[in-house]
Structure formats: structure tokens, C-alpha cells
């Protein structure tokens, strides 16, 4: 564990690998040229960026020309969704997504509704999953975009994006966007093969730096840029490229990909053990699917009836453990979780969600201590 702290919020952000920090710092010192400059300093920086693009492409089993560097998951999602809707508005104004998407997806659709687009929100079942049949049934002649997350950032429920991608190959004019921010480095995803047209990733979720991300774009798909400027990143993300962060991200993704299988096995063990122990805690309601194949091993999510998530988070913190209420991006609001509401939980329950996110650094002993702490804190708060 990091500094003997009990950090269980890896889905909010991960500590960068030490190797990544070293590379970023080395490059900030030595490769300060602007990749667009004609001289050698620019050329050196450009070469590094090019290599980073190749490394990222290899990890995703695709080609370098399909990789766009962005400032992170939110920007990737915005470029993909807003760019696609505005580019193809003349073809149709119907969009499909779900109500449990991350805010950086959901709010784009809310905005597009205000701009005159029509959005179908496919239903989410009690286990936190949408069904590919519902997506296919929602398709109309004027549908231009489908956006579904790979894994719920809140519950860890895996969504059937590959099945949807396969079905959508029969509708070549519909663009398929997948927000893979939570799954990256944990669940393999190969957009070329999975029928995915646009895919968003964020480096700080896979032990890379914050402020940098990836948008995969299948060639031939034109997006209307939401930022205007000097034409960098195929005109979709203009602005001087942050070469150190880009290289650091490529390194993190490469390291994570190399260790993916082993890490996943270990974390799956951790999850199994934690879930078994939490099942014994009276009154605690585990969310998601019973079948562990349906769940990202890195996330355990539960509700504590009658206790607001924030209260529980702080109570855990005072015991030295860091867990999360909803997702970090929404946890400041005193609103019920959009995801839990979509899953059919009633309001007070939907305000009591707790997310624990695990990582390869954790051990089985950690799981025991964690489960005990959850049970103890819950008992204490319940009595009050």
C-alpha cells in the first residue's frame, strides 16, 4: 500500500507509476521543444510523440493514425459526442445513450437535447446493465450516434459494448462511441475488432498523469471540432501538445497492458474475498450482478440504507480508509445517484451508495481489514 494509507478510491484516480513520473520529469527537462517547430528541438519532440502514438496504438491493437491525444476523458467524450452530433446533424437528429453514463457524456446529451436533438435513454436493469437488444430496438432511420460506457464507473457493471458493436456493424451510418475510461488497463478492449468508432480513455485512471487522455477514432469518421486553433491532433484537439504527459501516458498504458492479465487475476481474488465478507454484513446491500463475470474486479459497490454516502465516507476517513460516494465527479452534489436511480433504486437508497475501488497493490489482509472497518462503521452509524 501507498504510505500505509488505506486508499480504496483507485477508480477516482490512481497514483502514477514511479517510472512514469521519472519519464515525465526527464522529458520536461530535456524535450521542451514545440513539436510543430521546424528545427531539431521541435523534431525531437515530434518524434517522441509519434512513438507514443505507436505505443498507444499497439496497446489498443490499432494503428497510430487512429489515436488522438486529448486533455483527458471529459475532453475525449466531448469531442466525440458533440463533434459527431454536430457533424452529422443533417443526416439525422436522434441519439441513443443511457442515464448512467458519466457526467461528461450525460451532460453532452443534455446539451444536445437543448439544441434540438432527440435522445433515447435505454433502460438500465436492476444489476446495472443495459441490454444490447434495447439499443438495437431504439434505432430509427434518423439515428446518428450511440454512446454506451464500457464499464459503469459507479457500480463496476460491465456493459455489453462488444455485442452492441457487433450489431451496429449492420448499421454502418450510425457512429458508436464507447467511454472506456473506467475499463482501460483493466478489461482489454480492441475498438477495431469490436465495431467501435470512437473510444475515450483517460491516463490518470491507469497510473498515468492527470490532464492527458486519448480519443480513438476509426478512420473515415469526420467530427466537427469543438476547439479551434492550429490544427494539431488532426484538427480535433488544437493547442501545443504536452509531449511529456503524452509519453508518460503511453508508458503507463504499455505497463498496464503488459501486466493486465496477472493484475486482473489478483484483483478478482480480492474482490471475491471482499464480496464474501460484505455479504455477511447485516443490512448492507451489494449492488450489481451476482455473477462475477459481469463485474469489473476493481470495483465493489453497495448501499447502506438510511445513511447518506457522504457521512459514511467521512466516517471511514476518520478510521483512515479512503472510499468514495458515487463517482468522484458527482459526489459533491447532494443528489441521488443517477446510476442507482436508473437501476430502479428508490431515492434514499440511491443517496447511500458507496464505491470501493481496488488495485493490484492491495492484499487479502487489506480486504479483511476493509470489510471489518465497513461493518464496524456501519454498526456505529446505524445506532446513532
Amino acid at each position, binding site marked *: 500500500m501507498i504510505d500505509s494509507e488505506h486508499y480504496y478510491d483507485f477508480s477516482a484516480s490512481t497514483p502514477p507509476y514511479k517510472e512514469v513520473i521519472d*519519464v515525465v520529469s*526527464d*522529458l520536461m527537462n530535456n524535450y521542451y521543444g514545440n513539436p510543430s517547430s*521546424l528545427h*531539431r528541438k521541435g*523534431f525531437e519532440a*515530434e*518524434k*517522441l510523440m509519434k*512513438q*507514443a502514438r505507436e*505505443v498507444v496504438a499497439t496497446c489498443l491493437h490499432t494503428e497510430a*493514425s487512429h489515436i488522438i491525444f486529448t486533455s483527458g476523458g471529459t475532453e475525449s467524450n466531448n469531442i466525440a459526442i458533440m463533434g459527431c452530433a454536430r457533424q452529422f446533424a443533417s443526416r439525422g437528429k436522434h441519439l441513443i445513450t443511457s442515464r448512467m453514463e458519466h457526467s461528461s457524456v450525460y451532460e453532452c446529451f443534455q446539451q444536445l437535447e437543448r439544441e434540438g436533438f432527440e435522445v433515447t435513454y435505454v433502460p438500465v436493469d436492476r444489476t446495472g446493465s443495459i441490454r444490447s437488444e434495447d439499443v438495437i430496438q431504439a434505432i430509427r432511420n434518423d439515428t446518428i450516434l450511440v454512446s454506451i460506457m464500457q464499464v459503469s464507473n459507479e457500480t463496476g457493471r460491465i456493459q455489453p459494448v462488444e455485442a452492441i458493436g457487433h450489431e451496429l456493424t449492420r448499421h454502418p451510418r450510425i457512429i458508436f462511441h464507447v467511454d472506456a475510461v473506467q475499463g482501460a488497463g483493466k478489461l482489454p478492449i480492441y475498438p477495431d475488432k469490436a465495431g467501435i468508432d470512437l473510444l475515450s480513455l483517460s491516463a490518470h485512471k491507469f497510473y498515468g498523469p492527470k490532464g492527458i487522455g486519448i480519443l480513438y477514432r476509426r478512420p473515415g469518421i469526420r467530427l466537427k471540432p469543438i476547439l479551434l486553433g492550429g490544427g494539431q491532433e488532426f484538427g480535433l484537439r488544437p493547442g501545443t501538445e504536452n509531449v511529456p504527459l503524452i*509519453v508518460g501516458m*503511453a*508508458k503507463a498504458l*504499455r505497463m498496464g497492458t503488459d501486466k493486465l492479465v496477472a493484475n486482473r487475476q489478483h484483483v478478482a481474488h480480492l474482490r471475491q474475498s471482499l464480496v464474501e465478507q460484505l455479504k455477511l454484513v447485516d443490512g448492507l446491500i451489494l449492488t450489481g450482478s451476482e455473477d462475477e463475470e459481469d463485474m469489473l474486479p476493481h470495483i465493489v459497490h453497495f448501499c447502506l440504507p438510511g445513511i447518506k454516502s457522504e457521512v459514511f465516507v467521512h466516517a471511514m476517513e476518520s478510521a483512515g480508509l479512503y472510499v468514495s460516494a458515487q463517482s468522484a465527479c458527482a459526489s459533491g452534489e447532494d443528489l441521488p445517484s443517477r446510476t442507482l436511480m436508473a437501476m430502479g433504486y428508490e431515492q434514499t437508497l440511491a443517496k447511500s451508495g458507496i464505491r470501493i475501488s481496488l488495485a493490484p497493490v492491495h492484499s487479502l489482509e487489506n480486504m479483511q481489514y476493509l470489510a471489518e472497518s465497513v461493518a464496524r462503521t456501519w454498526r456505529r452509524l446505524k445506532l446513532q
Partner: protein
Amino acid sequence: MEEINNPIIMVRMGEQTLKGRNRHRFERAVLEHLQWRLERFPHVQFEASYGRLYIHLNGESYIDIAERISRTFGIFSFSPVNRCELSLEAIRETALRLMKSLKDKPTTFKVSVRRVNKDFLHDSQSMNNLVGGYILQAIAGLEVDVHTPAVELRIEIREQHAYIFCEIIPGLGGYPSGTNGKAIVMLSGGIDSPVAGWLALKQGLELEAIHFHSFPYTSERAQQKVIELAEQLSCYSRSIVLHMVPFADIQTGLKELGNETLLITLMRRAMLRITTELGRQRACKAIITGDSLGQVASQTLPSMSVIEQAAGMPILRPLIMMDKQEIVSKARMIGTFPVSIQPYEDCCTLFVPKSPSTNPNPSVINRLEQRAAWLQGTMDEAIRNTVTVTITERMARETDSYF
């Protein structure tokens, strides 16, 4: 190419084209090339047999290996195969397992049996029925269609084993790497010359490459581009020796001769002289260029005739009768196109005259060159200052440690 759990790839070498004593040599060349190409897959084992090569994957990735095979010259086609012992039961079981493993469940199929081993009990015709009938019974909803089957289940009965497969992937054809001697290709950085180099490789030539650059007037990016083109070409060969010749001094000298319309002719002749000299040093027997008849001023018949007089060895022009569209589609197939279209200045686009001559006068050229007494010395110096690098598919870079 579907990822299947297939332990063996059967590689068919160009049986039709290779005859007589050369056949053995060519087959060995393909084997050696693949052994080298697949070096990074330590568990792969090779088994050579008459006109065939069996590659045992032993757990290595089919997709990655198939990709390398599909980039190897001298291969007619290849198939992922299942091998089993020579008995009806084994063949039936293996065939059924294969049919069941197909990802897109076929609705129709047919069986094609080739019995090379005439000692095998059942002949081809009865094997068709024996295996086909067995599979029909075992898989519901499957029908036989002998004319347009969704899947053709092929069975080859050979001396030791039977081979069962559904897929035949065409190879690149051509001659195995290096079986026709060695040549040097003039690589400009444009679309055409890499395609010319690729066709030379396909014809079994071992390849070196020469590039003329005008650094410091042009960007280092132009040189990087040529390195990447050579990297791409080397995916189809073992490695490519690339000579980077500094050409700026020769170019500015020739410009000072003052005859702008003939500048390109003079430059091309100087390049051919240097290429001849370097080619001889490296035991190359021909020069390959990307000339395509009439495409630019230096590629008209009169221009080529004046230019080629400066060469001391045969010039081969694989693209001479191809139009731009054909060349571009080949470049896309090879993978050099996206590199070629990067917009960096190279030595040929520096000091381009407004109207280069399409019909240069040989005696004027000779007179101009005689006046340039400095030329030989400057060319010798360019050769001395040439940087030579060996390019392989993916060269280690100094920046690798950052990743």
C-alpha cells in the same frame, strides 16, 4: 483471419513457378526467411516437406505469425490446419471439431478430399460421403451445397497424416528473398520509389537503398521519412541497408552553372553516378528507380535516355508502364503511402526550376558537365560523407527507454 486455436500453419510455396534444381534452393530460402522473421516467437517449430512448410505454433499467436507469413515473398498460399492420424475416425472427429469451432455458424458446406496417399483405404469420393454425412448428422441446421457453400471443408490425406482446414489465405507470390541477386533502389521519399523497391523485393532481389538529402536546407524530418519508408519495406525483407548521401553542395554547385531548365537532368545524372559508385562498392548489379513514363519532366523518353547514360549499371524501372492510380493503390497495400505523403521538403523539391526540360540536349549537358571541373571531387566527398544505416522492421530507437 480468425483467431483460432490452431497448432499448425501449412505454407504452400510457389509450386507452379518453381521448377527443377532451383526449387530446393527457393524452398530453403523461404524457410530461412521465415525462421528469421519469426525469431521473436521462440516456441515456433518448422517442418519442411516437399513444396510445403508446416509451422507448429506451440502456443504462439496465430494472428501475429499469419501476418508475417502474408508478408513473405515466395509463398503461394497458407492455411491454418488441424493434423490428425490416418484413420477415418480421427478425420471425422477432427473435421467435426473444426466445423463446430467456426465463429460464424455456416448454414451450408461441402467437403473436398484430396488423397495424395493412395494407400489410404477410402478414395476421395467415398471420403466425401463418409465425412460429409457424419458432419451433417452431428450439426443440426447444416446443409450440403456443392456449388456455393459457405464453408469448404478441405481434407488432404498425405503420407503420414491427414490435414483438415477451411481457410486458404493467398500469399504474396513472387520469388523468395534474395534469390535473384542484389540491387540498389533510389529512394526519394515520394510515393513511387518505395513501390519500385517493393516490386524489386518481390522479384527476389536483395535490396539496398540510397537517398539524397539537402540537409541543412531541408528538414531532418525528410530523412526520418525515408528511414520509415525503408522500415516499412524491410517488413517484406530481412533488412535494408540505407545510404544517406549529402547532396546540398552538388545541388548548389549545379545551380550555379546557370542553366535552370537542365538542372534536374544534371542532378539526376550526378545521383546516378554516385549510386553506381556506391552500388559497385556494395556488390549491387542494378539500379532500381521509381520512374513512370511521362509522369514528370525527368521521366520522358528523351530525359531518361540522357539521364541513364550516366549510369554504370542496368537501370530497372518496375513502374515504367504503371499509371499513378495503380502506383498509389500498391503503395497503400504495402503501407508506404501514409509515410510518403508527409509534407516535408526533400532535395528534389528544393530549387525546382519553373519549366524543367522534357527534351534535354545531350551535347549541352556534356558541355555543362565538362565546365564543372569541381563536380567529380564534390561527388567523391559526398560519397565519403554518406551515412549508412541498416534498417530492420522496427529499429531500436534511443528513445525506447521512455516507453
